[in-house]
């Protein structure tokens, strides 16, 4: 290897001029050689939808398991014109989302936003935004365990063979055992999907509520697993089917009441404990979606209450979530 003698390696790490990106590190932190390696993996991932491309994941200045895969993918694709949004659990305010957003504001000097509509790149952990994504957007998922078969077969050498043969019997057996035991499939998040009729893929630990959003999505979806060193992708307008059986069709969670703050229905809600007397409220998990609705004048039961004291009214307390009855 004589990498040191080429122009490309001599010019990296370059300190990119301009903006807040002047940190002594290269634009978006990663050196150019690393970016090229990740970019090559991303291109293969797009060409082979749902297939996990091995990549030489680097040690990042944040811990493994905290979004290093998503951060590396974002760092490899982001440019000065991009507008970045980072969410964790659907919210822009969660500490790790704040930390990652700050990382890119500092190392790439890019504009950041909390508004889904304004973002060109959205890095996410555990949710897909409620607002329909557009063809101008890229959704980057942080993935802890990319292998959908891992909990059924711990060995990489075996699961690789199973994917090569498109042998997903293990997964169907697992789901069927759920039905035999519980009367329905007992997987509520990281619910396995089949991509473009070929690979079975882990959608990352998003609630299965979000699975239908992956199907025929206008945005490109990229998945980065740093510790496990895999990148995979779902191109826009690609068939993503949640695994199920004819007599037990896939169904998402539904909520019996609307969001207590904005009144939205058909969205994923977080259960918030209000007191130690059983008081609960349910609010949008997607904080930007909720704020936007409220700004548009939508009012949920909690905000409609006349007093500003903590609500215990029946309108907000104990709204049960219903598992899998509906689509």
């Amino acid at each position: 290897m004589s990498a040191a003698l080429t122009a490309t390696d001599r010019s990296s790490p370059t300190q990119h001029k301009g903006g807040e990106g002047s940190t002594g590190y290269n634009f978006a932190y990663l050196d150019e050689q690393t970016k090229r390696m990740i970019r090559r993996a991303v291109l293969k991932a797009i060409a082979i939808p749902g297939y996990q491309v091995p990549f030489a994941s680097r040690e990042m200045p944040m811990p493994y398991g905290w979004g290093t895969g998503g951060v590396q993918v974002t760092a490899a694709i982001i440019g000065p014109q991009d507008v970045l949004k980072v969410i964790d659990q659907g919210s822009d305010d969660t500490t790790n989302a704040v930390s990652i957003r700050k990382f890119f504001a500092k190392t790439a000097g890019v504009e950041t936003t909390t508004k889904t509509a304004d973002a060109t790149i959205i890095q996410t952990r555990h949710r897909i935004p409620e607002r329909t994504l557009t063809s101008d957007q890229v959704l980057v998922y942080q993935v802890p365990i990319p292998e959908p078969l891992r909990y059924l077969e711990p060995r990489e050498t075996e699961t690789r063979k199973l994917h090569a043969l498109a042998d997903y019997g293990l997964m169907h057996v697992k789901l069927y055992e759920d039905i035999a035991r519980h009367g329905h499939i007992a997987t509520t998040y990281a619910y396995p999907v089949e991509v473009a009729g070929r690979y079975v893929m882990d959608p990352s630990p998003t609630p299965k509520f979000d699975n239908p959003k992956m199907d025929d999505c206008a945005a490109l979806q990229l998945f980065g697993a740093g510790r496990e060193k895999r990148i995979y992708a779902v191109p826009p307008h690609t068939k993503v089917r949640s695994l199920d059986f004819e007599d037990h069709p896939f169904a998402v969670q539904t909520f019996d009441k609307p969001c207590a703050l904005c009144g939205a229905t058909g969205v994923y809600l977080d259960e918030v404990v209000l007191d130690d007397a059983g008081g609960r409220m349910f609010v949008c998990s997607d904080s930007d979606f909720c704020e936007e609705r409220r700004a548009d004048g939508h009012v949920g039961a909690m905000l409609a209450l006349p007093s500003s004291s903590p609500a215990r009214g029946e309108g907000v307390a104990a709204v049960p979530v219903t598992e899998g009855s509906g689509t």
Partner: protein
Amino acid sequence: MYVAVKGGEAAIDNAHALLAHERRGPEDVAEIAPRQIETQLKLAVDRVMAEGSLYDPKLAALAIKQARGDLIEAIFLVRAYRTTLPRFGASEPLDTARMAIERRISATFKDLPGGQVLGPTFDYTHRLIDFLLEAGAELPLPAEVEAAHEATPRVTDLLDDEGLIERDVPDDMADVGDLTRAPLDFPADRDLRLQALARGDEGFLLALGYSTQRGYGRTHPFVGEIRFGAVTAEYVPEELGFAVPLGSVAVTECQMVNQFHGSADVPPQFTRGYGLVFGQSERKAMSMSLVDRALRTREFGEDVVAPAQDEEFVLSHCDNVQATGFVEHLKLPHYVDFQAELGLVRKMRAEHAARRQGTDSELKEAAE
């Protein structure tokens, strides 16, 4: 009215300021200098260099200070720094036979060329807390001897002369893998396995090595030799075409000699387990050599029956930076998935109750 918790940047910044304050501790106590850590907590520095995969005592000492003595955190700091360094190529193999020996012992021979050199070791110390250290007692001067300048042959080379031990020359010296630059692929070759073990967590390897001694993949090990000292690292720049010295690194090397009954093709002979780590750590080098030998199980036509022999298991879990990240990521919010599970458990409990009720009424009817 309910207001969503806004963690926000201010809270994070405040937490970091508090951390810095706690790290410094009370101001009436002198601040520790990295140089003190480097010279007086040398074994901690050695571990951080070994598992951080970067030979830089000053940087390791600074990382230990910044990490408040949390060595895995310090290793993480060093690793994240290491990733950003440019790479020029691979050094020539270290010639440990030419080591400036500080310590060298063999358990397989009573005496041997070069002799047994005890050096700085805890072995044979009585583990009694030395209260004199509290006050900083004056120390007796160590004895001095003339340094031996001739090379000290390795025990395994002596065995090699007789053909009693397997040859240990890699087929392809030119193409040594690097798991920090290419994703690990199973089955992994021994170069990559050794690299993973050298970076691996000392505690994890210690436990695995120990398990082989207790019968979980027994290898009949003997310590052929352990040596510790400085070795010159050399590098051949493309434009020069000959090796130039880059400096010297202190390493601990362990050659474990293991029994092997032979196979149809191979006569009975001893086999090797190898350990090499930055700095002085016999525990790590010995554990590494036990696990290296255990991971060669398939190569010798033996069955993989124990955890230490299972390549995917060992290599996938020996890295403490990966392990600590994933274990500790559980403290990140998971409430979206938890909500999904809450819904499921509530539903299943309702179904369970309904079934119970059904069964009860059926029984009641049957009884009537």
